[in-house]
């Protein structure tokens, strides 16, 4: 494989630029006289290896200097750097798997770093091979594979072969003046370099690049650069003038609160009811969480109080809320809202019919289930009726959403219907419950999360989770107490938080409008 994008490497736009830069920074630090890895002549059986260091010292250095806590990480990184050829095993074995042992390694000279030799191609390789044929056969002789490659190259590069030969001769001449130890040293570096370069056509080579590399627009050309910049200028001006910003403290508080509230829904932390199908092969969880279910789980019903959006995003929640609205005789708002969702999801071809139908039912003067929107919104829709887009009801939908949130939804939260739902809600039990549960700290009515968590943990077997609350078998009670306390804390912020969830869309919408 001809590697031919060297010219890009010097530019920061080259995708791998940062990886090479970062690796080389580490390598340079490793070679620091005082703080680097101790490099000395090392004894290997009867021979002395100059300028080498051990795998043990390498791993030790990485752990100390890059704040690596686990040895696995140090081993992994050391192996990768070795694969990129920044150092290599001195013995002929040439493995790139670095271990914490007395195996000897030697640094590659920057002259032979991949990043500086990206261009090295057939000619360079031919020179290298030819050079070896001119030296001591016993020490530098080519193996069968290399001989075949050399013959191949000789044919391919016939027109340039004189140049190849000349180069090889010249390099041999230079070598002759060097000391023996130095020669061995250089030979090993050169061999190590080619070993990596020639593996480039192997699919697991570190040199392989993303196809995008060759397509990247290094200097993208803009036909209308000034227009582009003007757009940016007007963006900045708008952003300075109109964007409503939240204080970091407020924003971050919200992110923390969100994580706390949804913690008991986060499957990665082991919170799967009744168990994680991927671990137990029991798919009950998917059955109870399908979009429309007869009996929702308790956790699911609780979620409907987090925010109005959360309720509306669950088909089962919508069904129950619809029942409530029917009792309240306010069903037209919800129906209108759902119809707006249908518009957003409709194919363009069905849009006009759908929009007219909704208009007739909910907005026109003779509408059977009229919704309460102001004239400005209504007139805007009327104007767009003949040529509707998917966003025709955007403002109306937002208005009705807020209306429902303030009225029906807040009554729904307090209603008997909701209380009944919560009481009837199921807590799916794991199929095989092995643990006898003895702790029930029940600060909240109808909740028993600790059961499912500890059972789940047991079922998972090797899954050491629970994360934040770290429930080991011995500390279930502590875990349960911790969980309950945190739920209490979460419930405290919940009120404030859920209002901000729904409130957010307004600010976003406002900002967007302003920018228009």
């Amino acid at each position, binding site marked *: 494989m001809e590697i031919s994008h060297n010219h890009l490497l010097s530019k920061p736009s080259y995708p791998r630029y940062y990886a090479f830069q970062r690796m080389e920074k580490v390598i340079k630090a490793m070679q620091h006289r005082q703080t680097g890895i101790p490099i000395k002549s090392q004894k290997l059986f009867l021979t002395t290896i100059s300028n080498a260091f051990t795998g043990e010292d390498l791993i030790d250095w990485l752990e100390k200097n890059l704040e690596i806590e686990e040895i696995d990480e140090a081993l992994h990184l050391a192996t990768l750097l070795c694969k990129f050829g920044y150092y290599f095993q001195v013995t002929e074995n040439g493995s790139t798997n670095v271990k914490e042992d007395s195996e000897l390694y030697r640094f590659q000279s920057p002259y032979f770093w991949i990043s500086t030799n990206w261009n090295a191609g057939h000619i360079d390789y031919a020179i290298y091979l030819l050079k070896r044929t001119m030296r001591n056969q016993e020490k530098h002789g080519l193996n069968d594979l290399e001989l075949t490659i050399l013959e191949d190259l000789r044919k391919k590069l016939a027109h340039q072969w004189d140049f190849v030969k000349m180069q090889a001769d010249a390099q041999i001449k230079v070598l002759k003046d060097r000391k023996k130890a130095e020669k061995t040293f250089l030979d090993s570096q050169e061999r190590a370099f080619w070993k990596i370069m020639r593996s480039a056509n192997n699919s697991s080579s570190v040199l392989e690049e993303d196809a995008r590399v060759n397509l990247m627009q290094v200097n993208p050309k803009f036909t209308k650069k000034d227009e582009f910049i003007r757009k940016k200028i007007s963006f900045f001006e708008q952003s300075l003038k109109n964007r409503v910003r939240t204080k970091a403290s407020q924003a971050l508080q919200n992110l923390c609160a969100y994580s706390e509230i949804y913690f008991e829904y986060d499957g990665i932390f082991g919170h799967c009811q009744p168990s994680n199908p991927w671990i137990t092969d029991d798919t009950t969880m998917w059955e109870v969480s399908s979009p429309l279910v007869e009996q929702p789980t308790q956790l699911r019903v609780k979620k409907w109080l987090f925010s109005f959006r959360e309720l509306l995003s669950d088909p089962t929640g919508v069904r129950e809320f619809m029942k409530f609205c029917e009792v309240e005789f306010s069903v037209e708002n919800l129906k209108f809202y759902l119809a707006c969702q249908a518009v957003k*999801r409709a194919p363009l071809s069905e849009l006009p019919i759908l929009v007219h139908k909704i208009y007739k039912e909910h907005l026109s003067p003779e509408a059977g289930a009229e919704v309460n929107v102001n004239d400005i919104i209504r007139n805007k829709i009327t104007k767009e009726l003949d040529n509707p887009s998917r966003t025709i009801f955007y403002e109306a939908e937002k208005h009705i959403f807020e209306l429902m949130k303030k009225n029906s939804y807040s009554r729904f939260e307090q209603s008997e219907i909701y209380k009944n739902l919560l009481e009837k809600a199921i807590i799916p039990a794991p199929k095989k419950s092995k643990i006898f549960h003895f702790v029930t700290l029940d600060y909240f009515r109808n909740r028993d999360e600790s059961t499912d968590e500890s059972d789940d943990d047991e079922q998972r077997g090797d899954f050491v989770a*629970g994360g934040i609350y770290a429930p080991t078998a011995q500390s279930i009670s502590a875990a349960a107490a911790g969980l309950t306390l945190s739920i209490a804390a979460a419930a405290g912020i919940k009120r404030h938080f859920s209002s901000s969830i729904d409130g957010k869309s307004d600010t976003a919408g406002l900002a967007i409008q302003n920018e228009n």
Partner: protein
Amino acid sequence: MSAIVDEPSRISPLTQNGDLHSLHHAANGDTIEELTKEVEVLKKKLEEERAKFNDVALNVVAQKLDPITSFQLKSRRSLKGHQSKVLALDWSCDKRHIASSSQDGKLVIWDAFSTNKEHVVTMPTTWVMTCAYAPTGSCVTCGGLDNKITLYKLSTDEDISKQKRVIASHTNYISCNQFVFSDQQLLTGSGDSTLKLWDVETGQLMQTFQGHQADVMCLDISPSEAGNIFLSGSADHVALVWDIRSGQYVQIFDGHESDVNSVKFHPSGDAFASGSDDATCRLFDLRADRQVGIYKKDSILFACNSVDLSLSGRLLFAGYNDYCINVWDTLKSVRVSILYAHENRVTSVQVSPDGAALASASWDSTIKVWA
């Protein structure tokens, strides 16, 4: 002659006094250099404005949270069958199927739970860089070096490639695509530096989003339906927030020192995480309008290709070119785990729709499911 040479560098007296208002007027119809200078001035002003709202750091706020003490994910399924590098994956809404695409032009639909391959489609191109499941799970789209997005209807038929249709095209490779709320609209991002919104049924172009200065690498659509916004990340080192209706960008987030390879909304829709070639991941808050978190370590040297967040937003999963997935505590900004996931670069990580599992795709030609 000398007058012509001098022309671009001539500084108008107005730009020298630095007055923003008059500068703007002077810039109208003036040279690119002057416009660029004005951008710099405004950018600085915006930075100052943003800094005013920076009253506390994330790790300070997160102090009150309990640390994630013990945490472990294990590989539960290994999907083998691709003959070469897997470049993209996407979960189905049914929480058990996965679509994946690879360098050799294959699109595979997996029942990840049983690890069976349900469909294999051969595309007439290599490097299929992106694939997406439709929200109803009834069709899948994919594309890459062919500069096109092809839609395949999933049916029980043996050969789903009979039912294919091209619905989108760009003038350079397609790096990302995602359905917008329904099966009817598709958003695509491309190496031609634009994003485009398409009507799926007709293949009609609805909107073009111009604003990036280099290849668009990734996109993500807001989880909040009313939001009407989406994210894009690009090789110009910047992530943009777009208004899907107006076609304009409404927020710019910079900070990354190299290509932004991945952007993902926080489940709350208020923030987003990003991963970059500069070996860092970052967290940006939309309402604070600034970067609030950075996830990096001296020992992480390689590019981050893909990020995703757990259902509660507490964990950030990031797949890197060093074959690992690093799991970060999003709020405390510390790494909680390394998954030695693959034997080659990790190209894509995605949490399942119900948050129960994590899927990862790699150049080692496998896909793994973690739980």
